[in-house]
């Protein structure tokens, strides 16, 4: 009994700590502006209103930001997964001369070792010269390149777990290297792929710094930049920001829940006799 109390006690504390800001944001998005600043705050008893949602998504361009965010996040995640998975497979399976497979892996990882802000100015100048400023393409390129090292390292670990015999069997059975990868290896690393995809999507969806530096126009702005833009010299639009924030959570939440069954599924069970 005592044990159970402790266990649930900790769970409740952790849950409250994690969910309190979300609850706060969600209630703010539904409260009228007067209630925002009431003290003590009306925790549960207030008249809900959708005016901030209307303001954000109809009057202002948050709908546009949402679409931009979705396109940038999904496309960059797809690119990073495809490129990173192929690179990781090559690094996991082929021995390159001069120990290159190991060195390349480290070089790839090293691109994550400096603070992102260091590359902000160079990237801005590059995108300006390529006339890609204020385009979704610029963000897709940048996010893809930032997610790549992560994908390569994650997937490499998963590929290492898959017995080589399986691909060799597929090759002898008459499949091509790529066919063996797609039909035999990828299904076995699907849980890893799902976890990696969730992470990439979250990073791209929430990214703020580069979106701020590289995009200025309504048509190219992502949700995080759009939300932050409501903090202005004259006012802070808590309601609009909260409404947009509440909506921003939903896609990631749905995606992560959809991926959950892959995340927990066992890896290559029964592949080879232990």
């Amino acid at each position, binding site marked *: 009994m005592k044990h159970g109390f402790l266990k649930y006690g900790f769970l409740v504390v952790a849950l409250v700590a994690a969910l309190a800001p979300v609850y706060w944001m969600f209630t703010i998005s539904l409260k009228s502006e007067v209630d925002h600043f009431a003290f003590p705050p009306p925790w549960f008893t207030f008249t809900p209103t959708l005016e901030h949602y209307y303001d954000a998504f109809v009057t202002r361009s948050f709908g546009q930001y949402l679409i931009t965010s979705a396109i940038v996040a999904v496309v960059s995640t797809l690119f990073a997964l495809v490129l990173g998975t192929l690179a990781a497979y090559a690094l996991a399976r082929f021995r390159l001369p001069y120990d290159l497979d190991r060195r390349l892996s480290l070089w790839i990882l090293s691109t994550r070792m400096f603070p992102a802000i260091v590359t902000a100015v160079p990237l801005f100048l590059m995108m300006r010269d390529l006339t890609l400023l204020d385009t979704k393409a610029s963000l897709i390129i940048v996010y893809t390149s930032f997610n790549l090292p992560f994908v390569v390292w994650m997937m490499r670990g998963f590929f290492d777990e898959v*017995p080589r*015999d*399986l691909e*060799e*069997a*597929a*090759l*002898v*059975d*008459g*499949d*091509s290297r790529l*066919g063996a990868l797609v*039909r*035999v290896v990828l*299904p*076995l690393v699907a849980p890893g792929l799902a976890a990696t995809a969730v992470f990439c999507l979250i990073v791209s969806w929430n990214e703020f710094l580069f979106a701020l530096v590289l995009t200025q126009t309504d048509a190219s702005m992502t949700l995080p930049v759009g939300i932050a833009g409501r903090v202005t010299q004259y006012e802070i639009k808590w309601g609009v920001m909260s409404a947009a924030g509440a909506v921003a959570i939903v896609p990631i939440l749905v995606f992560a829940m959809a991926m959950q069954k892959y995340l927990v599924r066992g890896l*290559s*069970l*029964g*592949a*080879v*006799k232990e």
Partner: protein
Amino acid sequence: MGIRFQNVTKAFGNTRVVNDLSLEIADGEFVVLLGPSGCGKTTTLRMLAGLEIVTTGDIYIDEERINDVQTQHRDLAMVFQSYALYPHMTIAENIAYPLRVRKLDKQERTKRVNEVARMLEIEALLDRKPRQLSGGERQRVALARAIVREPRAYLMDEPLSNLDARLRVQMRGELKRLQHQLGTTTIYVTHDQAEAMTLATRVAVMKHGRLQQFDTPLNIYNHPANRFVAEFVGSPSMNFIDGKIDGGVFVSESIRIPADREDATQLTIGIRPEHISVFTRPQNGAIPATVYVTELMGNETFVFLSVGNNRLIARAPADFRAEVESPVWLQIESDKAHFFDTQTGLSI
């Protein structure tokens, strides 16, 4: 299909795993590559499959040089030691995989899968996943996946080594029947000399990457090319005694065996355990010995003997009884003896 290895060498760094191997396998043969672990037999098989790159030399299938042909275009089928079943596919999908890759239509695929499943008696398993199968069942599935199409040759890498003893003997027999039925060239790798003897039309014995002898099982057993082959094939192993030949008699300490040979100062005689008869009473011309230990096998008894500093093993009938350290007398069938050069180990 005929397969030919011509001066094939495989080196990993400075280590030559397979060294100057030349081997010609005729169409329809069942060739067993036999040797202890690390002798290069698996590497040889993998080179044939295209899973390892040949360092020097050439491999031909039907006179077509296949060194640079990619694995998937070699049209071979392989059974792996680990079985390498695809864990995410059902048994039916596993077996159909080689057909699916070759773009056979679904109807034909199902038909062929059902055929081999019936042949190997695994019809009931078709909807299961590999992890739900026992070792013996997985082995059958791996076999089914290999024979579902008609490849140029079957390659088998210790396919029975993960099975328990009883199942191993059973599957051994079935493999032999299957190959007889299909008549497809088969290359089979094993370190188990019993498998080699029972399955092969010809056995290639390897050691340290070098081919020691390539001959029929009977010739390997009766006429081993060197001491290694003589020792590796046969259970219990052949007895070896170092000695000399003096006036038509092999002499080593108290052992004297008539030998129709020229005098030699140093050579090794090899005698199989079944060519030594053990008697508990003195016999005319028999060699006195002491029982070290006896092992009753059920149908026969292995008698471990001391003759001076020499240790010998003899096969005796199951009813043979002798106490440890008791005196016995040996008769050796001298005409069945093998002679080896003590230095080189070569048969002489």
